[in-house]
């Protein structure tokens, strides 16, 4: 089966080769975990390694921020824009939604013009201000996600989580996890008084995937997924325990 590689070797391995074509893929994490970097790397890899032009739809950051951030990893997004392989579009959820609902809207024309195959939407969290009704919000996001697929795009959609460590808080947009094809979770983890980062593929529709929780880091080359956390449990709680400690707690101290 054809796969859309993210360009992050460890993550592509976790995804059994990459995302499936024309799917919507949610990447959720707390501020600073590397959601946008992961998305930019997906776009960059598409352009330089796969000949697949891309779009970045930003609802908050200015395009200049993406050019600067990308340059830190040696990715020349400005040059890619000049070559017609990339467009960084600053807009709002309501306008992009309405535009995609139109026949021959601006985004549709842009997709055709540059032959875009990939899109980064940064971030889906901004849709939350369009409706307080969860059912209505779900319907809005469902329509938006489907319009991206209709355009033949494979999408990385970021979503902000305010939980720095441990379980995500209640409230906000809980529906999008059900609407997307894959769900990648980025978490901070506290181990021995140091904060590390964990990545987990929670869901991948239509494909097997690695169920393990791996460490990752954002280096000068972008996101790098490393080895699984070994000998620990409760990673996603944010404060993992050594499995030996749990064993002692469960059996010896009784």
């Amino acid at each position: 089966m054809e796969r859309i590689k993210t360009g992050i070797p460890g993550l592509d391995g976790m995804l059994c080769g990459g995302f499936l074509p024309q799917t919507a893929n949610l990447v959720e994490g707390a501020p600073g975990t590397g959601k946008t970097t992961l998305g930019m790397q997906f776009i960059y890899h598409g352009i330089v390694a796969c000949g697949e032009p891309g779009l970045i739809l930003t609802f908050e950051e200015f395009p200049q921020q993406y050019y600067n951030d990308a340059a830190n990893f040696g990715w020349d997004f400005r040059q890619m824009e000049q070559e017609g392989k990339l467009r960084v579009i600053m807009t709002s959820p309501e306008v992009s939604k309405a535009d995609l609902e139109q026949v021959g809207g601006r985004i549709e024309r842009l997709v055709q013009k540059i032959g875009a195959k990939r899109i980064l939407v940064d971030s889906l969290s901004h849709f939350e201000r369009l409706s307080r009704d969860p059912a209505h919000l779900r319907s809005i996001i469902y329509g938006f996600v489907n319009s991206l697929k209709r355009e033949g795009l494979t999408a990385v959609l970021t979503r902000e989580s305010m939980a720095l460590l441990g379980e995500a808080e209640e409230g906000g947009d809980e529906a999008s996890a059900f609407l997307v094809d894959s769900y990648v979770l980025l978490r901070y983890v506290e181990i021995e008084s140091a904060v590390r980062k964990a990545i987990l593929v929670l869901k991948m529709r239509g494909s097997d995937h690695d169920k393990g929780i791996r460490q990752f880091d954002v280096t000068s080359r972008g996101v790098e997924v490393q080895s699984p956390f070994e000998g620990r449990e409760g990673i996603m709680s944010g404060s993992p325990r050594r499995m030996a400690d749990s064993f002692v707690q469960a059996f010896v101290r009784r």
Partner: protein
Amino acid sequence: MDELDLTGRLMADMDPQLLKFLQAKVNSFVKWDLVRFFHDNPHTTDTAGNIARYAGRTADTIRVELAELAQDGVLEESQLGDMAVYSLASDRYVRDLLEQFVKASDDRQFRVKVIYHIIRGTR
């Protein structure tokens, strides 16, 4: 020296095309901000309310200026459902002129001239 002499001296060495662009289209500080914003974000299409947010102003402050820039052909106004949205004009000539204007604005002397022109125009 009377005011006309000073104006003439300040504008004499300005590129005639840029001078015309300045006098006809960028005749307020808000418009200057807006053309700079669309120059830096050429693919933006959005409502007055959202553009105001990006520019750090209020929608009421920029609504008229956006409409005038659209009338003058610097921006394009279109209807998206029930929303009026603005984007940079696709006209190559306008985009080149805007590029020249923004580049020239990097020069302090040019900025002084623009400020003088705008203040004089508001009297």
